[in-house]
């Protein structure tokens, strides 16, 4: 069980997460949604023990996280930077398996198998920089799955793949989750996806960052891309999540800038919004 209690983190004097609490029972898949910059990646990094929060506690199976817990795998949002360019794709996937022991041949076989499962059969001998962004993202997913973690953190893992592959990968994660019963935290920007894959959807908000809402997803399992998405409960939930995310500040336009009439000499509105 993962227990996050009063988690607070700030970068300098910019507080990103404030007194955030979340409990995730073993084997649950929690989707995390929220506007850009609300602290989703920060939350995952705290759980991974990669940053130590300013305040609060993260406890995994009764032991406080202070450093990286065992049996953890992370799919980083910056997936391409998380692959080592001097190793082949297969060796990238096989590298973490050293921590699991086993012979080189076994590690390679496991890597090839994981690559096949994400649709990259035969790409193992290539280098990450020879692959497209979407393929690199799948390599990062394969690496995490091959590791057979007990806690899997995924930060927008399907952002760069096409719609069809995305659905396949969603189903792959659901299948691995069902078969191996690992706990998964999955950050996504796609509201339909958050409901489709999640046992629960957690909506984060911004300024101050924290949990705005938690919704149980009681859709029948196994889920199906066609029938689940047509289920009235699914539609109701995704509408609810969508409303909550908007409320959490997804479309915050500085009202003054928008209301003020633009002088001709001034730069266009798109430019001023950035500054």
């Amino acid at each position, binding site marked *: 069980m993962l227990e996050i209690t009063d988690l607070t983190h700030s970068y300098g004097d910019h507080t990103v997460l404030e007194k955030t609490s979340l409990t995730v029972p073993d084997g649950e898949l929690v989707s995390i949604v929220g506007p850009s910059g609300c602290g989703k990646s920060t939350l995952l990094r705290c759980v*991974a023990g*990669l940053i130590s929060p300013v305040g609060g506690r993260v406890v995994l199976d009764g032991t406080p996280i202070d450093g*990286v817990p*065992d049996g*953890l*795998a*992370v799919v*980083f949002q*910056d997936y*391409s*930077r*998380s*692959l*080592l*360019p*001097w190793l082949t794709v297969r060796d990238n996937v096989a*590298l*973490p398996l050293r*921590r699991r022991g086993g012979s080189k041949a076994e590690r390679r076989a496991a890597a090839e198998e994981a690559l096949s499962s994400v649709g990259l059969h035969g790409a193992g001998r290539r*280098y990450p*920089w*020879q692959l497209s962004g979407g393929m690199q993202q799948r390599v990062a997913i394969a690496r995490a799955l091959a*590791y057979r973690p007990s806690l899997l953190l995924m930060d927008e893992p399907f952002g760069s793949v096409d719609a069809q592959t995305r659905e396949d990968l969603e189903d792959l994660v659901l299948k691995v989750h069902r078969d191996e019963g690992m706990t998964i935290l999955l950050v996504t920007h796609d509201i339909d996806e958050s409901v489709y894959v999640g046992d629960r959807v957690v909506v984060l908000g911004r300024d101050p960052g924290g949990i705005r809402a938690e919704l149980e997803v009681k859709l029948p399992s196994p889920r199906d891309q066609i029938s689940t998405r047509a289920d009235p409960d699914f539609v109701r939930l995704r509408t609810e999540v969508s409303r909550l995310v908007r409320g959490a500040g997804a479309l915050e336009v500085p009202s003054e800038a928008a209301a003020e009439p633009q002088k001709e000499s001034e730069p266009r509105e798109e430019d001023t919004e950035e500054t």
Partner: protein
Amino acid sequence: MRFTRPALGAVGAVGAFGLAELVTRTGLVDNEYVPPASTVLWRAVRMCGDTEFLTQVGGTVRVWLTGLALATAAAVALGLVLSAAPWLNRAARLVVELLRPIPSIALIPLAVLTFSTAAKSETSLVFYAATWPILINTLYALRDVDPVAKDTLRAFGFGTVPILLRVSLPSAAPFVLTGVRIAASVGLVVVVSTELVAGTGEGIGGFLMQSQSGGGQPDYMLAGAVWAGVLGLLATGVFAAVERRAFRWHGAGTEAEA
């Protein structure tokens, strides 16, 4: 029109050779002290068969490469230690910036006094001169290692030393090699200068001194210089080839994105 790089290089070399030949043949410079380029080149080629000269070249190369190898080992090790401890790095920074600009030539007297043999003092000077470019490159390269790559291995439970070996060192390697390439040219200058100044008569520098003494044999002198140049060129070529083959991944990502 497109030329390959070696072809263009050859055109440049032939052009420079022709110009040098022209300048000496037309008497623009005194023929007695600066023989024509063709004479020098012919002399240089014939010196291939001169075992005494080759022994001297061998001595220079040995000192040069030994100093370079020791400097590489020391600079990379020091670089790793300094980047692992930020406070140590800050403390060492000023010392490095103070020592680095000291010309190795200025340390020749000290080296000669300190070390029993000429080879040892020369090696130590090459070591000194070659350490800085490698150390500086190593420090910058280690500072720029992608934190996401390090975090990835950390998340999979790898410790500090495995991350150093599996992420930081490979990622820094191309920059370290560039440092070694720069250090190689610097090192060659230092060996030959030391040989010249220390006056032990050894190495290419010693050969240059001998050919200069007693009225001088300018063609021998210049041919010796040509050999020093060829050594430098060879080293640069070897390092560049290693960089291209072993570090194909380096810059490949940016190429693809651009």
